[in-house]
């Protein structure tokens, strides 16, 4: 068969999503702007005491990252669902979980990776010590892909529903909580000079688990949603 290879399909889909995001720059910047605004409002709303800010910094940055991820999730399959591209995606001869993975990777590159770039700056704004910067980046690097992966299951389940946004939050927020707890705890502990290998290992194993299983679940959920 002269079938286009799976690799070609994966790369084309990834490139397509990145190109669409680039042509929709304003929409793509929304969650990032939200992330920056939420974090930078805290010092204004609270007592601007450097010690207090340093204490709350890990939690604030991680909660903002989590909410920014939630904000960007809905767009993962929405436009594809509306214009029929999702049907076409289901009708290719390639394994759907891998095509879904291409979309998840694109989503992370668009909405997760920029958080890693912005986080150190926001960390400094909240007086986060230099010893916490690496742990902050490490937890974001391990944690934000988990948010995209787990989130994709929820989005796939709710994409066919009108007003699925609220349901989406209810579905996936509980699954995001472990990431939040371990990541914020790791950054806080690092600031206090404690070992954070355990938390990082936990986040890493969550990532491995989500990477292996989420695309399968998302593919199944998409088939149900389009039924």
């Amino acid at each position, binding site marked *: *068969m*002269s*079938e*286009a290879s799976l690799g*070609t*399909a994966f790369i*084309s*889909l990834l490139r*397509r999503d990145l*190109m*669409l995001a680039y*042509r*929709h720059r304003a929409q793509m910047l929304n969650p990032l702007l939200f992330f920056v605004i939420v974090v930078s409002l805290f010092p204004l709303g609270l007592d601007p005491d450097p010690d207090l800010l340093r204490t709350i910094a890990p939690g604030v940055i991680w909660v903002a990252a989590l909410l920014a991820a939630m904000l960007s999730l809905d767009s993962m399959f929405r*436009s594809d669902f*509306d*214009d*029929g*591209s999702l*049907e*076409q*995606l*289901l*009708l*290719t*001869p*390639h*394994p759907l979980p891998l095509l879904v993975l291409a979309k998840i990777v694109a989503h992370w590159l668009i909405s997760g990776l920029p958080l890693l770039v912005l986080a150190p700056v926001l960390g400094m704004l909240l007086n986060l010590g230099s010893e916490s910067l690496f742990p902050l980046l490490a937890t974001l690097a391990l944690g934000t892909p988990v948010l995209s992966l787990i989130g994709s299951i929820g989005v796939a389940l709710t994409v066919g529903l009108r007003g699925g946004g609220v349901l989406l939050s209810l579905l996936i927020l509980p699954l995001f909580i472990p990431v939040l707890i371990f990541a914020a705890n790791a950054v806080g502990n690092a600031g206090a000079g404690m070992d954070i290998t355990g938390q990082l290992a936990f986040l890493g194993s969550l990532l491995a688990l989500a990477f292996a299983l989420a695309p399968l679940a998302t593919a199944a959920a998409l088939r149900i949603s*389009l*039924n």
Partner: protein
Amino acid sequence: MIMSDTPKPAEMNHSSNGSPWIEGVGLALSRNDRYIFTDLNFSLAAGQILQVEGHNGSGKTTMLRILCGLTLPSEGEIRWCGEDIRKNLAEYYAQLAYVGHAPGIKGELTPLENLELARSMSRPRKEADAEQVLERLQLPAYCDDVLCHNLSAGQRRRVALGRLLMLDARLWVLDEPFTALDPGGRKLVEELLSGHAQEGGMAVLTTHHVVNLEGCIVRGLQLGT
């Protein structure tokens, strides 16, 4: 609910000499505890075209989605080469091109980018060239670099139909392919369909238009009368 599989023109005796074919066996669909159709049977041999007819809401689109494996029928199955399509979806999908109600093209991409994407996602024709396909679809040359959401509905429909020419698919499933097309466009689709059938391809389509396909075996499938 009545379903019939009535041969239309007289050329029905044309045999398929064992080439790939598709059949629907005992299909039934229920929605909200009401059967939209039951015990629906049809089969299609190489070079044949099946026109699904029925009033609005008789389940034509759902019937096509069942044929594509997107919707599960309440009863029955679709067979490709005598085997349930769900047993080997990948092989079936390599032979299938679907142009649905929603065009399945991205508004933020140009027609060329859309067709190139279609090519890389499935089994392309060897000689498929996106620019030539757009020319064949009589899309003005300036459209090549225009984003699809700036095109007219008819032009977008043409881009969507371009997928048929990019892919090496044996079975075309077309949901109202004539919608939004001008008379020239309708004639073009008829030409594409008869060309496809003469090459031994098959097509299943829904339309309210009178289709004029010379030299083709067109069968009718009546839903919900």
